[in-house]
């Protein structure tokens, strides 16, 4: 099974949509790797263009964001764009249904946390770079920044756990139906 965690990038905005994650003009690509340079190309944070090619972004394997992450278009390209940029975990206060399902269908972890936990993670990021580790069996997540740390439980239903274990929905469905 994949391991989930690593250095986090923080996207401090709700309702980040899949057009911002990967603009439609790149949906003519028929390989996932072709999406790599275009991740978050149209993202605006505080009305400003986000630098998707920063050092922090290059090093990140975890994304932390706010409510309704991945809303809008159903394009799984949004999940693939993260995947080919080595993002293996997205933590948010909430996800749009299709985006969240696409994550688990690809065997990638999407963790939903209460706002208080998300606020605590953003607060931790004020101290410096944050590294996240996940214990899938125990359902616990730990974020550290230097000497400071924040730990909490996260919910994961049995179906989502099995999808992650199987490496995605196609394998799961092929074995079961």
């Amino acid at each position, binding site marked *: 099974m994949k391991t989930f965690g690593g250095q986090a990038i923080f996207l401090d905005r709700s309702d980040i949509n899949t057009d911002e994650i990967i*603009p439609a003009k790149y949906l003519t690509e028929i390989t996932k790797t072709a999406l790599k340079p275009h991740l978050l190309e149209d993202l*605006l944070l505080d009305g400003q263009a986000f630098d998707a090619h920063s050092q922090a972004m290059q090093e990140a394997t975890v994304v932390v964001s706010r409510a309704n992450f991945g809303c809008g278009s*159903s394009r799984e390209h949004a999940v693939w764009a993260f995947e080919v940029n080595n993002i293996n975990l997205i933590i948010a206060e*909430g996800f749009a249904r299709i985006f969240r399902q*696409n994550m688990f269908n690809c065997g990638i972890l999407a963790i939903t946390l209460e706002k208080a936990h998300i606020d605590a993670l953003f607060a931790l990021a004020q101290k410096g770079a944050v590294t996240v580790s996940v214990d899938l069996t125990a359902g616990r997540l730990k974020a550290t920044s230097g000497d400071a740390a924040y730990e909490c439980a996260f919910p994961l239903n*049995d179906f989502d756990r099995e999808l992650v274990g199987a490496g995605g929905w196609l394998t799961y469905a092929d074995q079961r139906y």
Partner: protein
Amino acid sequence: MGQTNVGKTIAEKIFAAHRRDTPAPGTEVISLDAVFCHEITTPIAIMDLVEKGMDQVFDASKIKAVIDHVTPAKDSKTATQGKIMRDWATRHQIKDFFDIGENGVCHALFPEKGFVRPGYTVIMGDSHTCTHGAFGAFAAGVGTTDLEVGIYKGVCSFRSPQSMKIALSGKLAVGVTAKDVILAIIKKLTVNGATDLVIEFTGETVAAMDMSARMTICNMAVEAGATCGICPPDRITAEYLWPFIQGEYANIEAAVADFQKWHSDADASYVSVVEMDVTPLAPQVTHGYKPDQVKDITEMAGTPIDQVYIGSCTNGRIEDLRAAAAILKGQRIAANARGIVTPATPAIYRQALAEGLIAIFMDAGFCVLNPTCGACLGMSCGVLAEGEVCASTTNRNFNGRMGKGGMVHLMSPYAAAAAAIKGVITDPRPLIGK
């Protein structure tokens, strides 16, 4: 969720009739009556199935496919996407495959062909699949992996459905449309207000709407986060579908009576109930980059526009073209603006020609495009330049949606046509039939 409530919603009834598995409490795998496919999200599913030695379809008669997002192909990449679809449809003898000459925007074309019926379960790799809930079906947009499994196994997983009821009362004023209703609803709910819920649209206003208007409101349910919009199927549904179902029922009354089984019970449970009187509603318009940023159009009046786009799965049907033409007849587009109209299907195009609507658009100075998703998502023709503004009948105003640095204002066909002749956002009501 009191235990005394034993009644079921439409969505719960559809799930009960299609349940294949319950892999975890609260998660259901349902069998699918139709899997819809288009050339943007399907080719990667096809290629993955081929690569894994699983190139099969669960039932070729239940797969409906179209090339609609970029058609005719604009470059080698989109030509390849079309070719993958074409070869696949041939290989698996998918009879209902719509290519150039017969193709149109999926969510307008497939209802026209009678592919959606009350009680059906439908998925497509397209978020606006929720449109088909207008027929009393559970129709949900999904990603490519769900689509792939749908094609291969004919099943899909969902959370056990939880519904929000939106009860609409009152009569729409002249110049106020289903588009204005759904924009007002999204404003009220916010873009996250119905996430992971089914929205059931009910009440006298919905009962009075034709199928085109019902499709418009269900189409944008996803903009509030909903999995599906659903309207209770009734006589209007039966009349629309009659050419396709007449072999199954003695008469329309029998169909209407049968459709009752896809109505929610009086004691069904809802997560929430929202009531709205549409009588005082004014034409609506979005501002900003989220579809819940909505104002009365009078508040945005005078905002200059560069392009007008009339089309899409939201508002590219014949009723929409008639509405726009009622304002454009005998008028010219303003000097600062350009107009594009895209009838959503060949049948709509043909009907618009027969009714003289195309001549009205052309006389006004509009460019008439072939049926395609076109400018809506900035994938092919009609892309905005940096800093340009579009008055659009489409469904999304996200940053970059119609082109990097462009601004899209969502509105009704009346309002878009009014913007075209004035060159600014304006209240369309005084211009109707002038």
